[in-house]
Structures are given as structure tokens and as C-alpha cells.
């Protein structure tokens, strides 16, 4: 019952031996036997456990902190507050620049102090003995209220806002305008304009205007944030942490703590799920604690702390007006997107603004983005950050216009879909993209083929029986760009070692094994791939923005080609042939055409380049690249649902994703990314929502009340891999990880509308919201019919 299919030319598949074929994870055995070491599985001699005290207020002034009782608790080694931290370059405008606040707490759960003890239970018990005196300040919780003139301010003024982390996820050349002038809660603004939207609405036959709401959602990696740090007597800082971004952490720690980058070793331990949420969060705190006590310190967030005080994904309110002609041509898009950033700037407003006007050719655009501060936890990236909020709006509205005009939703999308060379809302042209091809592919999915049958069912006859519907939506992501490098070395036994600096969060090291094996034409087993730490590995950008295979993969390919060239040069001398007359096969170098006795094994070459008195230098292939060309990934997704009109409950019957991967180096992991991303989008669509009360306190900080999709909720997800080659990626590969999360909410909403004729404008689509859309709940009272 394999769920993936591939749209690929047969000739291309035959061309390659190692890439383009399913490969199992190189680290798989460790993971299924429980032997893989995650950060919480590590212990260092003399290690202390940290427990952290969070603020019980969403907004308050700290009057005083009394740690005496906690310090004298038996077994406690230290109690550390802002006053006890080592000197660091504090920047209270950025979440990354602030360990403990000195004066003002800005969100419920914000860390204010830590206890260190050899026994974590002792540290936990002592937290309750710290006495903090707060003066409560008015919290601002709702982003639209926060934008109003006269709203209380969320926080004191900001300076020197750092947006480097966001740029790792999406690298589009656009400047955000930082807040200036009169103090307000609007952190930054953005505007894209094209043509004349009013003229566009005037020529439209159908104009629809709605407001779309999405919730704060949590990445909910199963492994919470986990970090260990040690600061040794020589002044060297070592950090082992579950992160997607070891070099980024090194650079930030260096700047903040004043330690040179070559005295910091950051090791990305195995990441138990990241999804954009594990870039840089607890590392500065734990490093500072280790520097204070001069002992190794481990801090594992509890699930509750992770939900209160990590970096979830933002809620957004999108006001959208769109116009379409009778023939299905889109004429105008006018949008105002408000992203709730929480207490610090960093909301992914830019990608939302790009995507809302970026799926379709549209002559007239007016897109305004606002990043607004509130007294809630500050937000971060979650797989295509900011994209689903905007896509839910535009893709729902596309279906509404299509229906009003009596057109086919797939044909209308195909008619308007952007193609290579079309402009993004920011003006720059799209490189090679495959949105149309994805739409064509989704038409062949089993889910979409069931659409006709679902429309024939006597669904809405009495409005009582469960009704079925199939819906469609597109999604996409631009991706990040960052330089990358890699090293390929020949060992003395003829095997190969590949070293990269990227954290492997999606199976990228397995793809690097395939790439190296392809270039050198050896079995996969002859290639080992290691992600080194920041002192031993060549530089790579963060594993975010879906760019790891696209950028680091290209560096690996270059490094393998460099090693091959060096090996062929030596072989040419020994075999008395020109390098271009030689070929590699199965761990041997031989004359093309298969001349007997004219061959040289990798093993022999390995010895000749490593042993005592060896005649040739070591084979070290080097690959280093940069890229300025995006390789956006688009997707088309179809959902089939059943809706119970009495309870408002949605049951997902089927889901299909068609996605352009450029070239699927490892179709097994590409399909896995598509299915995994879709499942997260389905959680966003149906059940995931962080609920805050009017005082800014999180009400559901656990995995029982914050509802992730379970196996009972998710049918098998169909994955259709589309391959429209990118211009610069290895073998044409493009970004893969993120796009699949983007369209799910809109696809489900469109399926619900197809089933029961009601339009849900807020996600997640809880039974209550569905009943409200059906007019079965009085909107004002919120009670049952």
C-alpha cells in the first residue's frame, strides 16, 4: 500500500544509479533500537540540572526577587537571577538578546530565574521557594486591539531589532519598515503594490470580501528543547543542543557572550523534531548558567514550559478582497495581514504577504502587512512560517469566487497559476517553478477522482445526514538561501567520509550519501556521512528554509567531483592514460571500454595516499557554494471530508499532496516530508490551537488539551512527487520540506464547503465553528441551537 507515485521521465530515472531511488536512513538502526543519543540521554561528569521559574503574569514589573530560601534548600548549588548572570551584550528588543528580564516581564511563562542542583527533583522543589514580588501591568492580548490608537503599550520601546533568524527561513530581498515615530504596538510594516486594485474590482464580475482568522499553533516536536553547556577552565564553551542551526548558535553566542567563534563548540545532537522551532532558544541561558557555576549544566524543558515559553507560530487576521471575471481571470487582490508577534518582534509577516499575491498572475495588488506586539510568548518559525495563515484566506476565497461564477476550481487555478518568469509581489521574477504541473498531477490523485462521486451523493437533501465533499488548494514556499560547504575524503581502505556542518533533521545526510555514491559510482555502503560540530565541520547554514539539500547537497556534489578529479589524476599517471579516458565503477577506476588489467581499486589508491612513504597526497575533495537563485516549491493538495451536520464534526477520509521536488534525490524521504508536512497542516486545519485567557495566560499547555492529530484522525496520505528541475540544485532538486504544510487548511475548508455548503472562516475548524458556519449556533451567544 505504498502511498507515493512519481511523475518523472523514464529516461531520467535510467540515467542515475544512486540518486533518484529510495534509500533508507543511514541512522535508522540506531533509532529503531533506542541507541541513538539525544541531548537528554547525555550525562557529563559533575553535571547540574537547571530548572527555570516562569512569570505568572503576562505583563508585570518585577519589584524584587528573594532567593534566600531557595539557596539554602539542601542540595541546591545555585540560584541565578538577572543580577547573577555573567556580563553579556543584552538587547531587550530581541528574544535572543535577553536571558532574564531585569524589570519588566512581557509574557506568561517568561523565564525570570533558575535553580541548579545535581538532582533535578531538588532543583524543581527549590523553584517554589523563590519569592518574586510583581506589580501587575495591563496585558494586551488581542492583536487588533493592540493596533488601536490608545491601546496600552505591550512593552518599553525597542531598538536594534535583529531579523537574522527569519532570513534563514525565507530569503527574499525585501525591506521591512521598522516601527518609528510615536510609540505603538506595531513592530513593523510592509506594503506591496501593483497596478490599480480599484480598477481591477471595477472590471470583475465577482467581488468577495472576508476576514480570515488562524490560531497560534505549536511545533510540538515530541522532544522538548534540550540543551547541555560546559565552560571549561581554558575559557572554551561547549554546547550540545537539539538544534537545526549549530553555526547560527555559535555566531550568536560569540557576539552575545564576547567569546571568539573558534573558542565555541556547538554540537547539534540528534533533533527529535524541529519544524523551525529549534533554531536558537535555550542555548544562551544554559551557556550563561554554565559560565556562572563553572560546571556542565543541562536544561530540558518540560512539555508545559515548551508550550509556554518556546516560540510557537503566530495567529493572524487576514482581511481579503478579491475580484474575478466571468471567465475565471483574477483581476485584483487587496489584503491586510496582521500577524501577532507576541512580546518580541520576529513574526513571519513577509512570507505571508508574498504568498497571498504570489500564487496567481494578478495585474492589480495592494497588500499591507502588519507585525503587531502583544503580551504573549513571542513567535518563531513553523514549517513555511506565516504561509498557511495567508494561504487559508486566498485559497478559500478562490473557491468562493469559482463557485459563485459556476466554474471548475481546478481549471480556474490552472488558468491563473504563476509560471516561470512571472513577477512575485515584490517585483522579482520567479525562477523555474512547477505550480501548474502540481495542479495537473493532483487531478490524477485518488482523492480528487472521488470528487465526482461525492458530488453525486444526495448530500444536502435534508441537511441531517453526514455529507461528503472534496476540496482543493495550492501552497508554496520560497525557501532560504545561504552559503554551504562540504568535504569528501578517501580513506586508506577505499571507503569515503563526507563531512558537513548542517544538522540532519530530514534525512539529508542519507541524500548526501546518495549524491556522493552517484558521483563516484560506488555502492551506498562505501560512503559515510557525518554532521560535525562547529569546530570540526566546514560551514553550513541552518537546516531551515527547506534549503539543506538544495545548498549543502550542491556543496557535497562539488566536493565529490573534486575528490573524483584528484583520484583520476593519480590513476591516469599509474594507468598511463588520460584522465578523460578513465571511468569509475564499483570502487574501481578503469579504462573506458573495459580493457583488462587496466584498473586500480579505491583501496589501493587509498593506501597510496595515506600510508608511510605514500607517493601521493591525501585525497580531500572540497565543495563550497553560494547561491542567489531561489528554488521555490509549490504544491497542490486535495482533501476529502465527511461532515456531521448535527455535531459539526469533520472526519478526514482522504488527503493527497502533489508537490514539485525538482528532482527527488531520495523519493522515500521526499514523500515522508510531504506526508509529514501535510499532517501538520491538517492539525492546523482541524484541532490545533493555543488558547489564552484575557489576562494572557495559556489555558492548554499540554498534549491532552492541545490536540495534535493522532493516527485515528489521519488516513494514509497520498504523495505525488512532481519533478520540474530547479536551475541550480543538485540534479535539479529544489526545496522540499516546507510546502506541504501550507495548503491543507484551505483544502479542508473547501472540502467542508463542498460537503455542507457552509464556509468556515476561522481555523482550526472545530465542531463549534462548523456549527456556527451552518447557522446552527447563535453567533452572539455561542450556545447550541
Amino acid at each position, binding site marked *: *500500500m*505504498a*502511498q507515493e507515485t512519481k511523475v518523472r521521465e523514464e529516461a531520467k530515472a535510467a540515467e542515475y544509479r544512486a540518486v533518484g531511488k*529510495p534509500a*533508507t*536512513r543511514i*541512522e*535508522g*538502526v*540506531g*533509532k*529503531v*533500537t*533506542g*541507541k*541513538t*543519543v*539525544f541531548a*537528554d*540521554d547525555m550525562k557529563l561528569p559533575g553535571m547540574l540540572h537547571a530548572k527555570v521559574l516562569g512569570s505568572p503574569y503576562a505583563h508585570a514589573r518585577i519589584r524584587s526577587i528573594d532567593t534566600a530560601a531557595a539557596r539554602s534548600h539542601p542540595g541546591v548549588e545555585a540560584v541565578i537571577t538577572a543580577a547573577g548572570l555573567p556580563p553579556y551584550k543584552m538587547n531587550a528588543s530581541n528574544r535572543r538578546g535577553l536571558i532574564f528580564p531585569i524589570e519588566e516581564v512581557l509574557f506568561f511563562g517568561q523565564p525570570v530565574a533558575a535553580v541548579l542542583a545535581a538532582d533535578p*527533583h531538588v532543583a524543581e522543589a527549590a523553584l517554589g521557594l523563590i519569592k518574586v514580588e510583581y506589580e501587575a501591568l495591563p496585558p494586551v492580548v488581542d492583536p487588533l486591539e493592540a493596533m488601536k490608537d490608545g491601546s496600552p503599550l505591550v512593552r518599553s520601546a525597542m531598538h536594534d531589532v535583529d531579523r537574522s533568524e527569519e532570513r534563514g527561513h525565507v530569503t527574499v530581498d525585501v525591506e521591512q519598515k521598522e516601527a518609528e515615530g510615536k510609540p505603538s504596538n506595531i513592530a513593523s510594516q510592509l506594503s506591496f503594490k501593483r497596478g490599480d486594485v480599484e480598477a481591477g474590482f471595477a472590471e470583475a464580475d465577482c467581488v468577495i470580501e472576508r476576514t480570515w482568522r488562524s490560531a497560534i499553533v505549536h*511545533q*510540538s*516536536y*515530541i*522532544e522538548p528543547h534540550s540543551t547541555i553547556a560546559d565552560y571549561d577552565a581554558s575559557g572554551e564553551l561547549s554546547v550540545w543542543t537539539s538544534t537545526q542551526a549549530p553555526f547560527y548558535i555559535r555566531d550568536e553566542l560569540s557576539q552575545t557572550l564576547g567569546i571568539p567563534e573558534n573558542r565555541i563548540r556547538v554540537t547539534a545532537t*540528534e*533533533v*527529535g*523534531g*524541529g*519544524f523551525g522551532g529549534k533554531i536558537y532558544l535555550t542555548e544562551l541561558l544554559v551557556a550563561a548558567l554554565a559560565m556562572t557555576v563553572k560546571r556542565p549544566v543541562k536544561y530540558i524543558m*518540560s*512539555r508545559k514550559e515548551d508550550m509556554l515559553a518556546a516560540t510557537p507560530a503566530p495567529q493572524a487576521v487576514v482581511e481579503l478582497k478579491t475580484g474575478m471575471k466571468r471567465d475565471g481571470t483574477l483581476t485584483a487582490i487587496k489584503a491586510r495581514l496582521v500577524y501577532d508577534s507576541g512580546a518580541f518582534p520576529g513574526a513571519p509577516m513577509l512570507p505571508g504577504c508574498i504568498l497571498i499575491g504570489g500564487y496567481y498572475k494578478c495585474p492589480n495588488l495592494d497588500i499591507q502587512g502588519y507585525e503587531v506586539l502583544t503580551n504573549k510568548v513571542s513567535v518563531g518559525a513553523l514549517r513555511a512560517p506565516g504561509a498557511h495563515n495567508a494561504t487559508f484566506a486566498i485559497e478559500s476565497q478562490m473557491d468562493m469566487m469559482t463557485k459563485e461564477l459556476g466554474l471548475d476550481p481546478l481549471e480556474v487555478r490552472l488558468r491563473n497559476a504563476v509560471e516561470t518568469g512571472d513577477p512575485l509581489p515584490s517585483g522579482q521574477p520567479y525562477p523555474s517553478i512547477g505550480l501548474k504541473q502540481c495542479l495537473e498531477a493532483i487531478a490524477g490523485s485518488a482523492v480528487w477522482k472521488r470528487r465526482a462521486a461525492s458530488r453525486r451523493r444526495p448530500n444536502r437533501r435534508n441537511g441531517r445526514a453526514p455529507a461528503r465533499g472534496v476540496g482543493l488548494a495550492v501552497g508554496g514556499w520560497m525557501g532560504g538561501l545561504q552559503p554551504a560547504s562540504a568535504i569528501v575524503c578517501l580513506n586508506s581502505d577505499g571507503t569515503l567520509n563526507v563531512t558537513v556542518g548542517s544538522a540532519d*533533521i*530530514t*534525512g539529508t545526510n542519507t541524500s548526501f550519501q546518495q549524491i556522493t555514491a552517484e558521483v563516484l559510482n560506488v555502492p551506498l555502503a562505501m560512503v559515510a556521512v557525518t554532521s560535525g560540530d562547529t569546530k570540526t565541520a566546514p560551514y553550513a547554514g541552518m537546516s531551515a528554509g527547506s534549503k539543506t539539500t538544495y545548498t549543502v547537497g550542491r556543496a557535497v556534489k562539488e566536493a565529490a567531483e573534486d575528490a573524483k578529479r584528484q583520484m583520476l589524476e593519480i590513476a591516469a599517471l599509474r594507468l598511463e592514460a588520460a584522465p578523460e579516458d578513465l571511468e569509475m565503477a564499483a570502487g574501481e577506476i578503469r579504462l573506458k571500454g573495459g580493457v583488462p588489467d587496466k584498473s586500480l581499486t579505491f583501496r589501493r589508491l587509498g593506501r597510496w595516499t595515506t600510508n608511510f612513504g605514500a607517493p601521493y597526497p591525501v585525497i580531500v575533495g572540497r565543495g563550497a557554494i553560494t547561491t542567489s537563485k531561489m528554488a521555490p516549491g509549490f504544491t497542490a493538495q486535495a482533501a476529502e471530508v465527511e461532515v456531521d451536520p448535527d455535531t459539526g464534526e469533520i472526519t478526514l477520509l482522504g488527503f493527497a499532496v502533489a508537490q514539485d521536488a525538482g528532482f527527488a534525490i531520495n523519493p*522515500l*524521504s521526499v*514523500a*515522508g516530508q510531504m*506526508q*509529514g*508536512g*501535510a*499532517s*501538520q497542516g*491538517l492539525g492546523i486545519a482541524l484541532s490545533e490551537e493555543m488558547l489564552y485567557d484575557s489576562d494572557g495566560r495559556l489555558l492548554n499547555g*499540554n*498534549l*491532552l488539551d492541545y490536540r*495534535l*492529530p*493522532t*493516527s*485515528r484522525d*489521519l*488516513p*494514509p496520505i497520498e*504523495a505525488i512527487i512532481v519533478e520540474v528541475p530547479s536551475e541550480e540544485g543538485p540534479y535539479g532538486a529544489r526545496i522540499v520540506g516546507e510546502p506541504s504544510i501550507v495548503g491543507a487548511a484551505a483544502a479542508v475548508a473547501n472540502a467542508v464547503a463542498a460537503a455542507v455548503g457552509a464556509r468556515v472562516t476561522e481555523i482550526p475548524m472545530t465542531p463549534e465553528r462548523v456549527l456556527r458556519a451552518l447557522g446552527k449556533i447563535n453567533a452572539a451567544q455561542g450556545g447550541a441551537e
Partner: protein
Amino acid sequence: VNGRPYELAVEPSWTLLETVREQAGLTGSKEGCGTGDCGACSMILREPFDPSRGRTQEGPKDERGRLVTACLMLAVQADGADVLTSEGLARDGELHPLQRAFIETGGVQCGFCTPGMIMAAKSLLDRNPHPAIEEIREGLAGNLCRCTGYTKIYEAVMAATRAG
């Protein structure tokens, strides 16, 4: 644990998970939530048989054992029981069919839920060697996976059924 007897002194408040991880040094079982919601700590537990009562503490003797969330169980409650974790599945260096199937179908991604998920799958197959897809979905519903969307995990369980 995994067929090896352990004689351990534990605090009354220690969980089975903490004891297996910290005292026995078997860190394959994970803590994802500490409240029994995610299933990353799942182990299979066989209660000791009490010959005088003709039953175990939990009920009739059951060689298949039961799936427990070890983060919610006190270590003392497991006194005398046989505990199976992911580290105890492979025999003589041969992976268990479920372990092999999880690798081959791509049912493993980040690997944090995997040890618990495989124990849940084993518990399911011990009771129902040939489950239908709906039964697999029901049987694994107590174990959260955030990476795969479960599709390849269903495939892994199906494949193991065929291999076993």
C-alpha cells in the same frame, strides 16, 4: 528489564521511565510530555504471576503483557514485572521484523517517538497479528508522531505483518 534482572533501590516517587533511563541506563524510551499523552515512553509490561491467587495483580495471566506509559507508572508498581523496551527487541544482532520494517518503509524520521511507537505496534501485533488499516490506526492512537503523518508507520506495521 529486557530479560535481565535488576535489583534497584528507588525513591518512592520515581517513575518507571526515570528508573529505566537513569538506573538501568536504558535511554531508548523517551519522555516527550511526562503526562502520558504522547506515548514516547511506551513499554510492554508483564505483571508477576501470583500463584496463591492464581492471577497477576492486574488480572488473569497474560504472556503478551500490556502496553504502559512508563512516565505515569511508579517504579515500585513494576516490582517483579518483566519490562520490555525497544533495546530488548533485537535478538542476537538481528533486528525485530517491526524494527526492520520501520527502517525500510521510511516509518522512522526524527526517531524520538520511534522506540515507543514500535512497542505500541508490537503490543498491537501480539494481540492481532493481521490488523486491518483501521485497526492499526486505532491501535497506535495513543502514540504521537509529528514527523511522518503516520502513513509510513501504517505501511511499516503492514510490512512487519507480512514479514512476521
